[in-house]
């Protein structure tokens, strides 16, 4: 009942969103942000490794660092960000209404979100995918062997839909144990109420890493049953703003590829490598083309770091391996077009 009502409110909100967009498009986001002096960035109120306030109330994570990088490129100061906590329910209206300029909130890139919500994904900062975790004692090595299993899953998510799709496709049956809270679902899995726990692989890996000495008891099965490319989102209608957010992400990847880090970026200014010279704005004048200072990427790398540094800071402590999120040169999917 409550869900039905919620759905009604969202449907109405999304319809209205289109009307809101017409207004939003009249003003250029790029100029509005520049005049305001801060980037309004929509983040999650708490997803470990992506955006989460620490004990001192300072935002930390891969997503919030993405916001800081945009501010560093635009203003030369990574601290000029106003973080707006959003939930899964109000994240899209917050972006549509202009409450935030960019949404970096573990949001999956899909066709419908670009085509019908009026958004553009500027890239991918994390390739995720749904996976299965079982206890080692179960002796299962592949998701194909899970016929008849009890599966712990969160309700109302794409996770739940992917799960039933996967089992139907493979002609297997399962018994779902549906639990809303992550904390409870993990306890249910540990206590043996379900044989299998399914969620995004990053979340499963992070769960495993918090188990300390018990981590060996749990196995992540090799099958990844869905694609969840997560990335920053902006409103359609301001190509300049879109370019900025997109190329800040690419610049951080390019810096990793070229070995430019926050520690050595000052030395790298003297580098003879033309690619590094172009990236750091020594030659080429690429920043001006984006409407920025030529030192835009230098500021990003100096203050926030390259992509690897962001990863090491936020995701590595969660115990998630780099995997497909590695650079294309190291067997991953992270690939930045040439910065020239």
């Amino acid at each position, binding site marked *: 009942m409550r869900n039905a009502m*919620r759905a009604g409110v*969202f449907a*109405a909100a999304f319809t*209205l969103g289109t009307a809101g967009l017409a207004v939003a498009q009249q003003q250029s986001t790029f100029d509005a942000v520049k005049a305001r002096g801060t980037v309004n960035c929509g983040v999650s109120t*708490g997803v470990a490794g992506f955006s989460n306030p620490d*004990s001192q*109330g300072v935002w930390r994570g891969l997503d919030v660092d993405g916001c800081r990088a945009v501010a560093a490129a635009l203003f030369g100061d990574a601290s000029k960000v106003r973080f707006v*906590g959003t*939930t899964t329910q109000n994240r899209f209206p917050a972006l*549509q209404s202009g409450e935030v300029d960019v949404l970096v909130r573990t949001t999956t890139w899909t066709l419908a979100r670009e085509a019908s919500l009026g958004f553009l994904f500027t890239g991918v900062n994390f390739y995720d995918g749904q996976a299965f975790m079982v206890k080692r004692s179960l002796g299962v090595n592949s998701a194909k062997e899970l016929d008849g299993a009890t599966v712990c899953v969160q309700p109302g998510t794409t996770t739940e839909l992917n799960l039933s799709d996967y089992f139907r496709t493979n002609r297997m049956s399962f018994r779902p144990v549906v639990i809303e809270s992550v904390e409870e679902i993990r306890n249910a899995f540990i206590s043996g109420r379900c044989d299998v726990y399914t969620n995004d692989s990053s979340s499963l890996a992070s769960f495993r890493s918090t188990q300390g000495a018990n981590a060996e008891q749990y196995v992540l099965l090799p099958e990844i049953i869905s694609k969840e490319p997560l990335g920053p989102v902006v409103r359609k209608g301001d190509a300049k703003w879109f370019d900025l957010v997109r190329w800040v992400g690419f610049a951080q990847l390019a810096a990793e590829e070229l070995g430019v880090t926050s520690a050595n970026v000052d030395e790298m200014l003297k580098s003879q490598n033309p690619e590094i010279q172009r990236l750091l704005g020594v030659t080429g004048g690429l920043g001006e083309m984006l409407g920025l200072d030529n030192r835009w990427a230098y500021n990003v790398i100096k203050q926030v770091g390259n992509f690897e540094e962001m990863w090491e800071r936020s995701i590595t402590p969660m115990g998630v391996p780099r995997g497909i999120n590695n650079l294309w040169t190291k067997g991953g999917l992270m690939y930045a077009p040439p910065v020239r």
Partner: protein
Amino acid sequence: MTPPPAEAATMGQASAAFVPAEERRPPSLSVGPIGWIRANLFNSWASTAVTLVLGYLIIRWTLGFLDWAVFNAVWSVPGTGQAVNTTACREMKGIGACWALIGEKYRFILFGLYPFDEQWRPAVCIAIFVGLYVVSAMRRFWRRELLFIWIAALTVIGILMWGGVFGLPYVEQERWGGLIITLILSTFGIALAFPLAIFVALGRRAHNLPAVKALCVVYIELIRGVPLISLLFMASVMFPLFLPEGMNIDKLLRAQIAIILFAAAYLAEVIRGGLQALPRGQYEAAEALGLSYWQKTGLIILPQALRMVIPPLVNTFIGMFKDTSLVLIIGIFDLLNAAKTSIIEPAWQGFGTEAYLAVAAIYFVFCFAMSKYSAGLETEFNRHRNR
């Protein structure tokens, strides 16, 4: 009147030979603690059995809880911030509580995202709020001056929280959080909803003003017809879409307005109950004295009506105080949401019980104080009836 022959015969025998009365045990103790226990806990076999079983369970659970919460608890762990090492807590999980979590996170739970070095400001504000409650609760301060005290205190709170003057750095509302958000939302929610509710309740009973009455009825029924969570969604999700870009009314303010409107509708119905319960004679007597409508309402009707509805009023207040935690669904860090967020960091995952217990204790202190105070107020106001 002469006794019947049989009785006369017995009396005759008794007087003939002395037989000592059968020895009796003294009456069992029926007063004092032992008597109370005997009468209430052990007065029959069934009762004794229930007492023993429940007593055993209570003692076992209490000891178990003490073991977990005190004797086996982990009070601190090495390191802090990102470098914290919670292995000690993990090893004791399920056996002992990890109070180190509260030690590490209490400032986040109480003050949320507020800049760390400036957190004395919300701390002072919380103290001012509590001081305001205490002063307002004392009857000898119930004078016109109290209003000025409130205005002054709220101004100070505003200056402290926002800053930007007197050398205090500016802190935008997005960064407010923790207990202070809960106190702001509930204090303003109740303080502004209450007068609004009085007018709505009076309006609903204004039979000679059909338009006003209809408006009040529609307002009450509309607001009461939807859950608070959907009002918050409306305020947070739909309302901004109606505004042109660049014009954003703050999220906290929108939530606050939704809470005020919601609380007012419920309070209005409570107050209307009091108005209805008042005997017709009171209205007529006031009119007979030649009082105007506002004199009649302010001097005769409301004081009596409000006194009657103290229990449901406080019920609504306590409910509203706890309902403010629903703002977590629109991404505001109130007390409960801050506690939930404090256990998201990988190092602290899995210690939800400790965080929730700490927050429950804070909520309990406030709600229990409200409840106790209202009970006292009720006795005092209704003393004339018990005479």
